[in-house]
Structures are given as structure tokens and as C-alpha cells.
């Protein structure tokens, strides 16, 4: 069985934004579960750490939250992406893809390519 890795700093916020973008308004537990599912259980999100991240994103205005009813009909806080959040997600996705592509090229490069 593969060792579960911790979530790298800063990427958790991006994952939260992407999750909300794909699935629409979601409560904290829902977000945590989706991230776990999508990562194929590779990421061990210490689920509690999600909440400070949610608060920070809300303070920055990229997500908003309001009370709603959860599946089992209890009061839950639902988070959704704001317009600004959507914009930021776009920008960060691009940045991330650029970085990933660059790293990939470096890994693909062989010694003879560089001479």
C-alpha cells in the first residue's frame, strides 16, 4: 500500500476552489470527502485543517458561505465560489499548468539534448 502524503502548502486552497467550481455549493465535510476521493486516497487531508483554509479564502472574498441544510437535515455551512474566486481559479490553474509543464520538460530532457 502506498504511503499517504501530506498536502503541500498552498495547494489545498486551490483544490478547494476547484472542488467548489466543479460541484457547486458544498459544506466542509463534502469538500474534504471530494478532495480525498479525487486524489484516490493518496492525500491524507487532516480534515480539520480544511477549516482555517476555508476561513482564509472567505476573508479574501474568493468564496462565500451561508447556512443551509445538509443531507441528514442538519444545519450546515455551505461554501460557494464567488465571481472573484472563479477568476482566481483560472489564473492559478494556468500558473500551475505552466509550472507542471516546465518541470515535465526538465524531467524529459536527456543529457544529449543539452549538449
Amino acid at each position: 500500500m502506498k504511503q499517504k502524503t501530506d498536502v503541500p502548502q498552498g495547494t489545498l486552497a486551490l483544490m478547494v476552489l476547484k472542488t467548489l467550481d466543479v460541484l457547486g455549493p458544498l459544506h466542509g465535510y463534502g469538500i474534504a470527502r471530494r478532495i480525498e476521493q479525487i486524489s484516490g486516497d493518496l492525500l491524507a487531508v487532516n480534515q480539520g485543517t480544511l477549516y482555517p483554509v476555508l476561513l482564509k479564502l472567505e476573508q479574501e472574498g474568493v468564496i462565500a458561505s451561508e447556512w443551509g441544510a445538509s443531507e441528514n437535515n442538519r444545519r450546515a455551512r455551505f461554501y460557494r465560489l464567488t465571481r472573484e474566486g472563479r477568476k482566481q481559479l483560472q489564473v492559478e490553474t494556468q500558473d500551475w499548468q505552466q509550472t507542471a509543464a516546465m518541470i515535465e520538460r526538465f524531467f524529459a530532457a536527456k543529457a544529449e539534448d543539452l549538449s
Partner: protein
Amino acid sequence: MKSPKWLKRFFARLFGYATSRAQEQRLQEEIAEHIALQTADNISAGLSAAEARRQANLKFGAVEAMKEDYRSQRSLQPFENLLRDLRFALRMLRKSPGFTIVAVATLAMAIGANAVVFSVLNALILHPLHIPQAETFYGIQHGNDALSYQSYPDYLDLRDRNRTFDDIAAYDAALVGLDTGENPSRAWIFLASGNYFDVLRLQPFLGRFFHASDEHGPNSAPYIVLSYAYWRIIFKAIEASSAASFRSTNIPSPSSASRHPASTAPWYSSIPVSSCPS
């Protein structure tokens, strides 16, 4: 109107400080809900109720550590700590009034002494007299008394036998009535010897100064020189005013204005300074 993110966060935190109790409640509810949902999922996955809850708590992680993190995100922790420290300091000061009195008195004296020293420095070094080569001017005192006066005959003796200074001028302050025809008012003036402005090396802004040559012994023609500020106030800097005559202690006189913005006292002189107190 896009405000930077950190500013947005700052205001959110300020707001967070004001609403900390409601926010604490919200976090509490969110955690409870999170664990309840996880427990329900665990039960449907086949775990016993107790085990399902245990697993849910394990997965959530250390609640208190997370809460600490959350709180420090929520509001301005340094600001909150500062307020707490201030409150604590005030409480301690109230608890020991003796120490408080000594501390306050010490501070008051230190600040007072500093203010005095600075005001002297300010007057002497930062804002010296508006005269050329102010550092070459000295006041002559009699004995150790800083407020001592020289009598007029003494001044004449000093002036005539002077080999130390280029020249020596005399002045004295007096309170007189000034009347331009409509608004008689009281004013502080200086009575000055004829060489006064020559010694100070000042040039008049308007008109002319009196000189030593204008002295013809007692009851020689009196002159009056207005300070720049006084001239501005009374005559509103109208040039025609230089021709205006006005009465001062019953002596009509031609006037001239000197540029001395720092002082609001009018310069006035009757020549020679026959009324110098001894």
C-alpha cells in the same frame, strides 16, 4: 474598485475580532456537523456506532490545534494581545498606587525637562534670530542677574569706552497707546538707541530706519518703526500707509515698516532714549 487581498483580509479580521463569539459558535457547529456526517458515512460503511465516531474523530485530527489556527486566522491576534496586555498593565497600576505615582512623576519630570531643553535649543540653534551673523551678537548684563538693566548713562559710558564690540545699542520695552486715527490700541514697543538698526545690520522693508545721526540730544525728532507683522495687521500692507501719520503718546511721526515677521510688537523709538529707566 478592486481592493488588494491583504486589505480585504485585514477588514475581515477586524470584523472577526468584533464578532468573535458568533464566529466561535459557528466553528463549533461546523465541527460537530462535520463529525456527525463522517460518523453517518462510517456507519453506513458497516462500522459500529462507537467505532464510527472514533474513526470520524481520528480523521478530523486534533480539534484544539485546529481551533487555535482558526482563531489566529480569524482576527488580529497581535492586536488582541496588545489590548489584553494594556488591560493587564492598567490593572497592575491600579493595584499599586505608590509605584504608579512615582512612575508618573518620574516620567512627567523627564518629559518636562526635555521639553524645556528642547525649547531653548529650538530658539537658539534651530530658529536663531533673523539677523545676519546672529552668532556675533551678545547681550550685556550687570552681575549675575539675567534681567538686570543698565541705566542710560551707563550705556553711554559703555558705548563710548567700548573696545570689545563693533558697536553697542540700547533698547527697552514699554507699553504705549498707538492711535492711527480710528482704533486706539495698546501695544508693546521697544525704545531703541539711534544706532539700533545699524548694529543689527537690518534693512527696512519700506521707508527708512533712523540712524545715530538722527539723535540730537533730548527731545530730538521722534521716529517710529513698525514691525512687519504689525504693519500687515494694522495697515493690511497697503503701500499708501507709509504716508499715514499716527499718534503715539502724543507724538505724531513719519513711519516706516521693518521686515520682522517673527515679532508682532511694533518697533518704536523716541530719540534719544531719554526715558530709559535706570
